C-alpha cells in the first residue's frame, strides 16, 4: 500500500509540476488546496469561448482517490453551474469520462479540459439539472442559452481575470 501511495504521490507531483509549467487554456489555476495534501485539488474552469459560458470562471473541487490513476477523481463544481449534466446544488457532474470511460492515461488537467468540452456538448438525455435539460430537449436553445448566461452573469462572473 505504501508503495502504491508513493507512486500515486509521484504521479501527482508530476502532474502538479506539469500544470505549473504548461498552462492549460481551459483553466485559470490548478493546484492542491493545501500543499500538505496532494489528494485534494481545486481549479478554476473557464467557460468555453463562443458559447453562453464565455466569460465565466467556476471553482472546481477535485478529490483524488487512493487508487487514483486507476480510478477517476471526484470532481464537483463549487460555483453554481447551470448545465444539464451538472447538479445545480451539489455541483456533481454526470460525465462518463469520470465514471465508466475513465482511463488511467487521463490527467487532472486533461480531465478538466474534458469537462470544459462537456459545457458545450451537453447530454440532455441523462440530466442532473432537469430544467435545463428540458429546455434543451424541447429545442428552446434561445431560452437555454439565456438561462446559462444569467447564471454565468450572476455567479461565475466575479472570478473574471
Amino acid at each position: 500500500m505504501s508503495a502504491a501511495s508513493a507512486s500515486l504521490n509521484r504521479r501527482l507531483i508530476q502532474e502538479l509540476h506539469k500544470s505549473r509549467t504548461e498552462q492549460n487554456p481551459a483553466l485559470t489555476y490548478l493546484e492542491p488546496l493545501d500543499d500538505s495534501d496532494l489528494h485534494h485539488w481545486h481549479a478554476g474552469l473557464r467557460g468555453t469561448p463562443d458559447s453562453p459560458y464565455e466569460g465565466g470562471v467556476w471553482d472546481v473541487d477535485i478529490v483524488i482517490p487512493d487508487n487514483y490513476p486507476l480510478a477517476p477523481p471526484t470532481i464537483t463544481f463549487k460555483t453554481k453551474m447551470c448545465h444539464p449534466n451538472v447538479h445545480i446544488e451539489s455541483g456533481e457532474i454526470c460525465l462518463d469520462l469520470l465514471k465508466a470511460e475513465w482511463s488511467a492515461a487521463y490527467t487532472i488537467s486533461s480531465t478538466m479540459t474534458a469537462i470544459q468540452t462537456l459545457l458545450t456538448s451537453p447530454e440532455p438525455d441523462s440530466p442532473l439539472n432537469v430544467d435545463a435539460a428540458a429546455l434543451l430537449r424541447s429545442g428552446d436553445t434561445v431560452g437555454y442559452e439565456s438561462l446559462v448566461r444569467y447564471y454565468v452573469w450572476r455567479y461565475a462572473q466575479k472570478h473574471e481575470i
Partner: protein
Amino acid sequence: MFRYGTANIISYNATFIVISAAAISFNFSVIVIPASLYGDPNLEFPTLNQTLSFALEISSPNDFDTLYSQDSSRGNTFKGLLYVPDIPPDNPCDTPALVPRNVTRKDDLPMDDLKLIAYAPLITPECSRVYMESAENDNVAAFIFYGVPETLSNGTDPRHDESYQYEYPVYYLDGAIGQPLMNKLAEYSGNMSEVHNEANLQTAGYDLRDFARIYAVISTRSTNPMPGLWLFLLVVVAVLLFIIGASSLLMHLCQFHYRRSLRRRIANGEVDLEGLGVGRITVPREFLAKFPVYVYIAETSSIQEPRAPPAAALPAPMEGSSEPKAPPAAEPEPEVEVSEQPPSSDLSSSPTQPPPTVTTTATTTTPARTTPIAVAPTHLGRGYSQTACPICLDDFIHQETTVRELPCLHVFHPECIDPYLETQSSLCVLCKQSCLPKGYVPIRLTNAIVRRERLMRRVRERSRSTAHDRHRSGGADGAVEMAESGGALFRWRVRRLRRQEQDLMGREALSRASLRRSGGAGAFEYRRSGTQGSRMQAAQSGRSHRGGEPVEDAVRPRSLAVMRDNDVATAREIRKHLAKSVAECLALGDTMLQTRISKGRKIRLRSLRY
C-alpha cells in the same frame, strides 16, 4: 314407443362412451328376505349362513368373460337377486334340460322393485336375444349368461356374433360353473321350507316363511377411475402442458442457439464486448502474463527530430533525462542495436525478465551474435515511441526500465498496467483497444446480453441503412422527403447520427492521439517514429525488407493500423452524413438544430486538437 326410443338413445350413448366395466369377480350367496317385510328395497337383508347353504365366489379370470360392459355411472359393483327372465313357455330356448322348471323366476321374487340380475344359458343368439329383451323389461342391473354344451348350442359360439344393445352389462360364466348355479337357482326359488337344507336352516333359527334367494354381486374393475369430464380435463391439461413444454423447449433451444452464435461472434472478434455494457471486463492473470515484457530501448530521437519537427519541439524538455542516451542512438538503427550488446549482458541479470523467449535466448547464447536478433523483434515490434509510462507518468529509462507491451503495442510499467488490467478494464489505457485475445469470451453470456447485442446490432443496421438511403436520395429529394415525413423523426435520426458520430469521434480522437500526440495539455509523451511508420506501411503493402522478417510479420498484424484506418474512414463517412443533415436542416429552416449540430461538431473537433 317413447320408452323404446329413450332406451335406444341411452344405449347408443353407452356404446359411444366406451368405458368398460369388466368384471373381476362374481360372488353368489343366499340371502334371506323376511316374508313379513315388504317395502323398503334398500334394506340390508341378512345373508344365510354359508355353512348351511350355498355360496360361490368366482374370481379366476378363466371362468368368466365380459361380453358387453355398461358405462360405470351405475357404479362399480352390480348387485341383485339372481333370476331367470321369463320367456314364452313354448320357446325352444327354455329347455328344461338347461333351465329347470322350478328355477327362480320374476314371480318368485318377493318384491318388484328389488335390484335384479338376470341369469340364463347362452344357447344361440336368438335365445339370448329373447332372454335379454325379457330382462330389459325387468329393469335388471346386469345379465349373466353361462355356457352350455355344444350339442345344445348347435356348435356355434354365440358369444361373439351377438350385438348387445342394452342398458345393462352382460357377463359370461363358464358352463362348468354356470349349470350348477342354475340348479342352485332352482333350489332357492320357493320359500324357506322348500329349500334344500331346510331342516338345518330351521334349527339355525330361520323362519320358514321367509324367502331364501341367491344374491349376486359382480365386482367390476374400475378400468376408468375417472368420469368422462375429468378425463377430458386431464387431456386438456396434458395438451396444455405439452404445448408449454414444447414451446419452452423451443425457446431454450433458440436461446441456446443465439448464445452460441454470440459466443462465436465474440470469439471471431465481431462483437464489441465493451460496447455491450456488461460491466467491468478485466484481463485474467494468465493472459496478462503472456504479454511480452522487455527492457525499454529509447527511440532514436535524432531520426525523429527532422521527421516530426513540431512534435519534437514540445517533448524536448521532457526528454531531458534521456538526453545522455542520445549519442548512441544518433547512429542509424542497425548500429543502435549493435551498440546495445554490452549492456544486454547485464540486462540478463535483472530479476524481472520472465516471459519473452527472445530475451531469454539472449541470456543463454553469446551476446555478440544473438543480441541484435534478440532485441530487434521487440524493438521493431513496437509501433509507437513512448518515452513515459502513461499511468505513473515516469519516464522510461533507456535499457533499464522493464516495460510490458500490450497487443496494441503500447508499453507500460508492468507494475502500473497490471493492476489496471486486472481490476479496472480490459482496454488499453491509451487506445482503448481490448487486450483480451481474440477468441476469448470473458463473460457468462446470458439471454439479456444476447438481447442487448441484438438490439444494438439492429439499431446499428437501421442507422446504416437510413444513412445509405439518405446518401442515395440526394440532397434536395432528401430534404423534401424529410419535410414530408415530419420533423420529429428527422430530428431523432439526426440525434442518433450525432451520438454515433460522437462515439466514433471519441475513438478516433484516442487513436489519433496515440498516433501523433505530443506535448500540449497531455500528460504523456510519445509519438510515432517516422521511420517505423513508413516501415509499417511498407509491410502493409506487402513488401518486407528487413532481417528478422518472420517475427516482424508476426508482429505486424497486431499493428492495427488497418483497423484504425478503417475507423477513421467510417468516422469521416459519418461526418459527411452529418454535414448533409446540416444542409437538410437549413433546407427545412431548422436553424436551431443546425446550429446545435454544427456547434457540436466544432467543439468536438477542437477537443480533438488537444
